[in-house]
């Protein structure tokens, strides 16, 4: 078995767990989770009860309910709302993981309906068998369109899906796991899918058509047989180099430094012995010491935003989040390419400013007016009040010192009566903004 974290499991550790395996804590949630202890906390995520969406219902800027299929950007808001309101945060987070793993873009699929359908597939199969997930993805209409599955037929094989199936989804490139011949033969095995096209419906009636399938004998990974698309997926998952690829990739979503060899081998064993199930591997990763003692990770923009809203107790109530997320570098349903988002490059001068703006938009409804009463003058009290707005996230000493120093200096500027009255709320507003964008809250 891989090592299990044995250090203290307090609010700070619970916060990290909730951010890595979900979308951050609601106010008081980290404290509650800490009381359950490490195992109790992890199990509450991997084995939650039924999903009840908790919190204010989503609406657009005019107060209308979301129309995810019909209104531009509402598909993203719909998903963001699930991230904010879910009571099964790990399952919702896995939905985002699979969206990145099997990165499919609406840009190529050109159908919101099919993108949402794929999204539900990820949610439904997120922690079950990886083989089942892979089979479902392989025949998923959005994927069939995205990677030319419906263009791959007996007389004109298209290698697009075959290659990515091995390179990005199951085995990895440059590891000697497959040859170019395997790509060609896999493409033959995967033939047979087609769809119809309607003037108003667009693509519909995705189906397997035997007549388009190449029923001949293929040689894949040194095995010979009359393989079809199911065999193609099975051969990949049963490939001896798949478990290490799977474990490394999955680990990377939760922990920013690669697993040690011993850990990786133990996780592979868990994966294979469970019959290629995702949940036991995720559970072991969430119990691993590296998650609690290792370096912090930059939150993906969607996680950052959803978490801010969870902390603030605010629902999805504006369409601004669609363009703000896109400026921040993560337009949901539009990953940059089939390899997904680059998790090591979330932050630059452009995306940092976008996150600043996300924070400004998030806290704006609760802004203090400059004539707000009973705002304290003491820098420490001001900071404490600003922290309360976000549910008292744990801060590093360095950030706390910087923010206190800012508050002290800003209050020292109040050299006139009107400034003495109006500066405390201004300073608290500024503290909220700085806090929300400080390195501590950008990472977890």
């Amino acid at each position, binding site marked *: 078995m891989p090592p299990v974290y044995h250090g203290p499991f307090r609010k700070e550790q619970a916060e990290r767990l909730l951010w890595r395996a979900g979308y951050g804590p609601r106010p008081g949630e980290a404290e509650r989770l800490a009381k359950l202890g490490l195992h109790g906390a992890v199990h509450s995520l991997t084995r939650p009860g039924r999903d009840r969406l908790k919190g204010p219902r989503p609406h657009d800027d005019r107060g209308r309910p979301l129309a995810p299929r019909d209104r531009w950007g509402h598909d993203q808001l719909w998903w963001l709302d699930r991230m904010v309101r879910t009571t099964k945060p790990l399952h919702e987070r896995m939905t985002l993981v699979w969206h990145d793993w099997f990165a499919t873009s609406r840009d190529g699929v050109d159908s919101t309906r099919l993108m949402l359908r794929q999204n539900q597939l990820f949610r439904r199969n997120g922690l079950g068998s990886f083989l089942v997930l892979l089979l479902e993805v392989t025949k998923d209409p959005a994927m069939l369109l995205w990677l030319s599955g419906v263009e791959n037929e007996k007389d004109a094989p298209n290698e697009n899906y075959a290659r990515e199936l091995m390179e990005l989804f199951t085995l990895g490139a440059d590891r000697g796991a497959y040859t170019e011949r395997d790509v060609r033969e896999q493409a033959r095995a995967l033939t047979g899918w087609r769809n119809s096209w309607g003037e108003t419906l667009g693509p519909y009636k995705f189906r397997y058509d035997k007549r388009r399938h190449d029923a001949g004998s293929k040689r894949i990974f040194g095995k010979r047989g009359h393989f079809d698309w199911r065999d193609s997926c099975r051969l990949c998952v049963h490939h001896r180099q798949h478990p290490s690829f799977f474990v490394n990739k999955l680990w990377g979503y939760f922990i920013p430094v690669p697993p040690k060899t011993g850990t990786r081998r133990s996780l592979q064993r868990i994966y294979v012995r469970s019959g290629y199930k995702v949940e036991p591997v995720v559970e072991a990763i969430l119990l691993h010491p590296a998650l609690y003692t290792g370096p912090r990770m*930059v939150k993906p923009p969607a996680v950052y935003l959803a978490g801010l809203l969870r902390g603030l107790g605010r629902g999805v109530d504006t369409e601004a989040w669609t363009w703000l997320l896109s400026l921040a570098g993560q337009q949901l349903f539009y990953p940059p390419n089939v390899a997904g988002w680059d998790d090591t490059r979330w932050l630059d001068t452009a995306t940092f400013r976008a996150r600043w703006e996300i924070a400004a938009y998030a806290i704006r409804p609760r802004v203090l007016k400059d004539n707000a009463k009973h705002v304290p003058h003491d820098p420490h009290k001001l900071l404490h009040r600003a922290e309360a707005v976000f549910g008292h996230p744990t801060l590093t000493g360095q950030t706390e010192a910087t923010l206190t120093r800012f508050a002290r200096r800003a209050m020292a500027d109040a050299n006139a009566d009107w400034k003495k009255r109006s500066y405390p*709320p201004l300073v608290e507003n500024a503290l909220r903004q700085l806090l929300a964008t400080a390195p501590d809250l950008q990472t977890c």
Partner: protein
Amino acid sequence: MPNNCHHCDEFSRAALLRKSAAEAGRGLPAIEPGMPVPAGTGLDRRSFVSGVFGLALSVYGLGKLNLFDEGIAHAATRPSQPVLVSVFLPGGADSLSVLAPVLDPNYRKLRPTLALPADAGPAFAEDTRLHWHPSLQPLATLHGEGKVSVMPAIGYTHPDQSHFTSRHFWEVGATEARLTTGWMGRYLDRHGSKSNPLQGLSLDYQLQPSLASLKVPVASLAAPDDYNFWAPGVWGQVENRMLQALAPLGSHRADPGLNQAAKATKQSDRLRRQLLPFSNSGDNNYGSPVQYPKVDSGFPRQLAGLAAMLAAKLPLRCVAVTAPGEYDTHSDQPQALADGLDVTARTLLAFQRDLEARGLADRVLTLVWTEFGRRGEENGSDGTDHGAAGAAFLIGSRARGKMVGEFPGLTSGLDRDGNLRPTSDFRGVYSALLEQWLGADARGVIPGAKSFARPALVK
């Protein structure tokens, strides 16, 4: 809009359609049969913040966003190129008020209530029949310095009196309803770069159709001061203190993850400081050495920002912007016209002075145009209806400063509908600008270019 006439619903619908042109993929509202679809409709639009200059651009057209930064940086290192600015007066400005033919015997007959008094504005030196609108004193000043070429009756044969269609002709540079690229967009397609969206810049939230391209990216930018760090309910001294806190928040951290975020904070703070010249807070006006009009309009800010971008050596080539004011003056014309022209002309003068002060005046020409002029005869509601030829101006230190085409007069100069006949063709002016200013061959950009006479526009 200062009109209450029914047939101008078309104008607002056109405005609506143009707005949606930028929102590709969201579906267009229905338009009447036969109306052209605006150039650029359906162009893919994506947001992009240039890390080089910190500008939040909307980029239209093909290409990988991450390549644009390099493209902009690369283009910025090359020798400065001439810049053409297009300023559109929306709605069809009344040329017979812009340059009022106060000494034309027919003027007062056609305009019993709207005719401007003979001494209202400064005389136009090149044709003593004409006087500038009083609000255009700033243009008269520049004309006196030899920096304005006036086109008193510019248009095209077989004029179309639909705002929408006529504007479309001007924007695509041809009287063709089905052209979908703008005339400046086609110029950029031939002579522009595949990686510099700033070469065609729409100073707007959406793409100006004259810039719609097919092969190269172009961009829109509402204002260059987008790289700011605004926080709700924070201003003045406290805001300055808040921004000062970014540097210590961005200082080194032992944890690599925290340090990654700290580094981004630090770099963003540095960029923010570098871009302070583009800041428009308080009286800063993008660090402009001249004072732009302080009015409730985005136009002064847009042109002040444009001058600042040019001063910062941003690689701009073609720029399009809409002037303030509503010129579709079917009623209450005097006030509406005076208000719009006033802000427009004062801002254009400030822009010219700004360019002169920054040593950029030899690089920029500004073409001011409108989709058509208005009917010679006034209507019964203190206004005028749609006409044919209108007025246009080319402004700049390198403008030749000589009238292009003459004022045709209000007797034989009116067509049988009572609209002014054109004495210059906009396609000839475009061809001349392409050849004399941008150094390009007009053939291949302006359909049928060889059939249009080229006025001498540049000195």
